[in-house]
């Protein structure tokens, strides 16, 4: 019972780095309630140890220092022409698995530019195999979604167009 409980917590934590802070808070609250009920304080230390280990293995959480293939992407003002092109590419290459506002095969992408860096997004589009091996956020997402993202072999130009499109989408409230 306890084992299962812990596993679930870790899964939640691993599966979505996005809301890590709230989740960590939730875990501790849940855990405290749990241990208050059971008064098994000796187990608390073990849970903390596991939780700490998971947090540290998930990388920094925010984008700084995490593995990406593309590095140091500088974003200027949104290029509307590129964004229009990106919208078309998104419909053909991405929309089978990603919607803006709901989870489908992959995560909703309406506000992905708020959650992820431009380096992360471009790397995940262009080099999903390297990201799955090296990026802890992507690893955690795989354990939640269970389907590895397809490499659709976009060019760098196409990937940037998709990024511009996603920047427009978030400005429209995450829907388009």
């Amino acid at each position: 019972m306890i084992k299962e409980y812990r596993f679930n917590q870790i899964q939640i934590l691993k599966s979505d780095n996005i809301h890590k802070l709230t989740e960590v808070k939730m875990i501790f609250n849940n855990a405290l309630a749990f241990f208050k009920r059971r008064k098994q304080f000796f187990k608390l230390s073990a849970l903390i140890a596991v939780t700490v280990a998971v947090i540290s293995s998930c990388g920094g959480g925010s984008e700084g220092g995490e593995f990406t293939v593309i590095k140091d992407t500088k974003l200027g003002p949104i290029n509307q022409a590129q964004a229009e092109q990106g919208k078309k590419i998104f419909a053909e290459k991405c929309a089978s698995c990603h919607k803006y506002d709901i989870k489908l095969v992959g995560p909703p992408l309406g506000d992905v530019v708020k959650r992820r860096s431009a380096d992360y997004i471009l790397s995940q589009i262009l080099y999903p195999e390297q990201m799955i091996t090296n990026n802890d956020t992507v690893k955690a997402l795989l354990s939640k979604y269970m389907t590895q993202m397809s490499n659709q072999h976009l060019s760098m130009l196409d990937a940037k167009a998709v990024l511009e499109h996603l920047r427009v989408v978030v400005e429209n409230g995450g829907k388009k």
Partner: protein
Amino acid sequence: MKKNLLLYSIAALIVAMAILITACPSSKKDGVDANAASKVYVAPGQYDEFYAFFSGGFSGQMSVYGLPSGRLFRVIPVFSVDAEKGYGFSEESKAMLNTSHGFVPWDDAHHPEYSMKGGMPDGRWIFINGNNTPRIARIDLTTFTTKEIIEIPNSGGNHSSAFGTENCEYVMAGTRFSVPIPNEDVSIEDYKQKFKGALSFIKVDPNNGKMDIAFQILMPGFDYDLSRAGKAKSHGWSFFSMYNTEQANSMLEINASQNDKDFIAAVNWKKAEEYIAQGKFKEFTSNYVHNYYDENTHTAISEKKNKVKVLIPGECPGLVYFMPSPKSPHGCDVDPTGEFIVGGGKLATVIPVFSFDKMTKAIADKKFDKEIDGIPVLNYQSVIAGEVEKPGLGPLHTEFDGNGFAYTSMFVSSEIVKWSLKDFKVVDRIPTYYSIGHLMIPGGNTVKPYGKYMVALNKITKDRYLPTGPELCQSAQLIDISGDKMKLLLDFPTIGEPHYGLAFPASLIKDKQVQYYKMENNKNPHKTVKEADTKVVREGSTVHIYMTTIRSHFKPDNIEGIKVGDEVYFHVTNLEQDWDIPHGFAVLGNNSSELLILPGETSTIKWIPKETGIYPFYCTDFCSALHQEMSGYVRVSPANSSTKLTWNK
């Protein structure tokens, strides 16, 4: 007492071991190199040194193996339908198997040939013959798929094929069975008067490989067995072996084995080109079908043709000569220098080695013994360079190692003999298990063989493998030819009957593989490039379902409004753009195969539902952790129902 017991035990053990050792069937170890295992071991994750391609014989297909491991990589569907890949079942691929006799879903594939440049394989295509309904196929080595099949008119069986010239100018075909040309309703008794044999030269477009029958040569009604193009100094000539010069039409095993010598025809194809250019051909009418696969529409197209240019040797001096060759020659193999043409007389007691130089001199000196249908028969002594004495029984086929040695397979005595091209003396022999047909050395038919290995392609395996009921596997054997003595390394089973094979270094094509079909190049009229475009369209009783796949779902996956008796076409586009991610498609009860849709490809399968109900469909090729979820339903309503056509997006 105890000590004595121990001594007795040891003695008994020694005796037992001695008995065991001597009782071991020695035949299975004959010639096996002591380090054989390490020489054929390719560690997990490592690549083989050579690609090898073996004909599948009566399977109609071609298989791809690695050497030296003998691992099977792929079976390429060529002349036979292949339900595993939807080949011959999908609407797009069906036309590949069209002939003048309609859809022919099978053939007997014997001899692969690679495209060459300067007498060496260039890694572009492999050609292979269909023996039964005469055809030649071209396989693309960037996709490992059959791209083209051309039917050979005026032919009764395409055996001496598909052998090519050193710059892929032509692929050759000769008829195994002579027939009336043009074919007509005659008595078989009229064989000698009415039956003819055609030798065909198929032009290959150097840019895209597309084949076209350039011309045929109308020959006497013999049985044309194998062929080889000249090379280096003999480039411009081709050689065709033949049997049944007796022109028997029944019990050939006796009646076609009467003559001491049959012939190897030497054809001057450069001369033929001159005659064609001068218009000295006759145009014959004969139906044949030419199929090719459009890379952008992923669809095979059939073209009906009925005209072919024919040259008559009697009217074209210098076009064809006969070299007498002892008893029913099979092989007519040209050595790397182009000087020697080796006859493999199945029933002969020697291996005749003809000299190209002597042949051209004999032609110049008109050393003719007689003429047959206007074809001069050269004097045997004037063209022979030497004979290999006592080679064994049943010499069939010869290849070369590039170091001055030839290797000839011996069907009857089940062995390979190695002999010197200097003095035509046998230097080594090795048994094969059993009844070898052709043999193959990587590049063994080129101007510069790669050597190192030789593969024996055997007809019978008998006791070599675990038995599998009445039919046993066919087999290849890998032999090390890097030293003075041939050493057996490995047995490995093959698909169908491996008549002949080819091999070249893997590096020639390994990095040229197509990984997926680019969606932007997909010109299939029924493609669906994005999920938003999926739809179901009814045209009378025909329904087109435009469907997409990506890991791991179909769109649409719920379809209603299909009626009993509808002709339903599932046009499935695989939206993936990544290597090694095909999706499959199969619907319950369909009288057809699955589809295997490669990334970026559109494939179509036809389905006529016969009963009302709910029909599941699903992905057949494991694609992701959620592959098992990749499924859907079609609702089939009565023919007269008013169920609305709906589908989910």
